[in-house]
């Protein structure tokens, strides 16, 4: 007997180890990469940690000079000022691919500077963004490119914007958009939870054995609703959102419907269990008074389940805010959709704002729902 047991145990151990090896393989787990690739993720992390939240009103001052490429194709800037804000190139014309130095003097100190080409046809090419020093000075090595060549005697111009923040901080466009989308998400979750409650609350009584499972008809009704809830619960909200998305095209509405259906099933199940867990005594007492069946439920069951119901509803609102964020990713609208767009556009700071908003809202909802549930007895 001991030998068969040892063999059996060894076999089970081998199977478990094999299962783990397979799991590691299929997930392509490579933990050292977490550290090797850290530099790659650094910029992303930095962007997430510096979300786009506030902006300042910016005053832009632009100065420009004509810069013919190649030399002789157009007249050069005739008179360079010798004081005041001015641009001084090391040469006043250049051949294509030649490099020269552009210096700026007496600009706004410590300001952001945008250097760009204005092509003869009026289009612009941004070269770089840089900063002036405390004296309002910057220097930058520019390479002349063939595309910047003069056309019909009209030269490209070098333009420099100095951006000076004026006035106080104000919410950035990203923050406003994030807040708008967050409201969509929170209210989508609220509306779907509310609608689900309105539908699930009465149905849950039909799926509660102590209320419905009496006689032949009652038992059939009980099993129908019980299995309805169990069946609906087994569909993931994401799958449901995709199905509704294909049906109604993507946007907040199918996301809301998916969330509602899943919440009906989940709340229905929780509600019916709350109904089954009541103290049967008051129900018995009310039956004994000759009260009609609906009234025995209204007076004997409902007061007992109210705290549980409210607790489950708030809990589900909380859950639905999270789920609707994820549903947004598959096109369900709201903050998840916005985050998805930001990431696809490589707008990392904007994505950072969205992520922070999600973290804060989820935390706040979690805290709030826990506090409210604590107070219910």
């Amino acid at each position, binding site marked *: 007997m001991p030998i068969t047991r040892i063999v059996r145990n060894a076999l089970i151990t081998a199977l478990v180890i094999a299962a783990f090896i397979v799991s590691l393989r299929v997930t392509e787990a490579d933990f050292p990469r977490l550290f090797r690739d850290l530099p790659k993720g650094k910029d992303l992390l930095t962007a997430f940690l510096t979300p786009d939240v506030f902006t300042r009103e910016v005053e832009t001052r632009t100065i420009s000079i004509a810069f013919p490429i190649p030399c002789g194709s157009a007249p050069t800037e005739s008179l360079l000022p010798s004081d005041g804000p001015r641009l001084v190139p090391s040469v006043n014309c250049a051949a294509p691919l030649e490099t020269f130095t552009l210096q700026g003097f007496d600009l706004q100190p410590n300001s952001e500077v945008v250097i760009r080409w204005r092509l003869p046809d009026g289009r612009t090419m941004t070269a770089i963004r840089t900063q002036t020093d405390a004296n309002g000075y910057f220097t930058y090595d520019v390479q002349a490119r063939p595309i910047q060549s003069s056309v019909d005697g009209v030269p490209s111009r070098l333009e420099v914007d100095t951006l000076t923040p004026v006035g106080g901080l104000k919410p950035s466009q990203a923050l406003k958009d994030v807040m708008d989308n967050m409201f969509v998400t929170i209210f989508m979750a609220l509306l779907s939870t509310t609608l689900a409650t309105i539908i699930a609350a009465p149905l849950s009584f039909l799926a509660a054995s102590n209320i419905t499972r009496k006689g032949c008809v009652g038992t059939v009704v009980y099993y129908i609703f019980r299995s309805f809830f169990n069946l609906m619960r087994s569909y993931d909200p994401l799958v449901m959102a995709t199905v509704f998305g294909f049906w109604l095209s993507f946007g907040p509405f199918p996301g809301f419907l998916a969330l509602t259906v899943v919440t009906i099933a989940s709340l229905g199940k929780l509600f019916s269990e709350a109904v089954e867990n009541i103290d049967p005594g*008051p129900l018995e007492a*009310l*039956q004994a*008074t*000759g009260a*009609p069946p*609906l*009234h025995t439920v209204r007076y*004997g069951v409902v007061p007992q389940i109210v*705290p549980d119901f409210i607790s489950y509803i708030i809990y589900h609102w909380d859950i639905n805010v999270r789920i609707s964020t994820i549903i947004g990713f598959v096109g369900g609208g709201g903050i998840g959709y916005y985050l998805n767009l930001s990431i696809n556009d490589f707008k990392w700071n904007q994505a950072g704002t969205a992520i922070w908003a999600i973290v804060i809202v989820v935390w706040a909802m979690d805290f709030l729902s826990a506090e409210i549930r604590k107070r219910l007895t």
Partner: protein
Amino acid sequence: MLQIQNVSKTYPNGTQALKNVSFDVKDGEFLVVIGLSGSGKSTLLRCINRLIDPTEGKIIWDGVDITAAPPAELRNIRRKIGMVFQQFNLVKRSSVMTNVLSGRLGYVNPWMSLLGIWPAEEKQRALEALGRVGIADKAHNRADALSGGQQQRVGIARALMQDPKLILADEPVASLDPVLSHSILQYLEQLNKEGITVICSLHFLDLVHRYATRVVALKDGVKVFEGTAQEIDRAKFKEIYGEEAQEVRAASL
């Protein structure tokens, strides 16, 4: 007059709680049912208002066969039968007032009461019922804020709201401190003197002696005694409660 005729009850799990029990209860009696836990007292009381359907036999009340009543008629019969429970069976989170008013659900407009709206005269009636059991001042407390004795008085007030001709009391004092037993039973006795028939199950024999006009004893679902409390001598006592039983007096506790 309430006639219990050859009533038997077998539960779906095979337990035979009542075996061919028959007796009559005359109007105005204070009938006490005694017997050990599990002897079928609760089942018997619940068969009378059909919270439990008897498997066999008939229960006839003033010529009406309760056991054959269809649902609507059964509700009308139940309206006239108040019930008081060992565990009080109040809705703990509801106010005392709501608990008492709910005894009136068989009478009032069903739509209004479903919305929780009660006529002023019913509220007045509830306050009077609470006044009769001495706790009118607790009307707006939550039921679970009251002590056990007070909760049982709410239970009696709820039964009173039914304007009952019969009160079934299932071990009404078994969950209470023994010293409170008399205060509760005196309310039942008072109602009995006003003409309400009372059928009450009790544990303590001295309480039986004090309140019962007649006694029925059950043992393993069989009626083993019917008569006055004074007729229960030592031999009868041993027969009802078994050889090892010792009499405990509520007053001595």
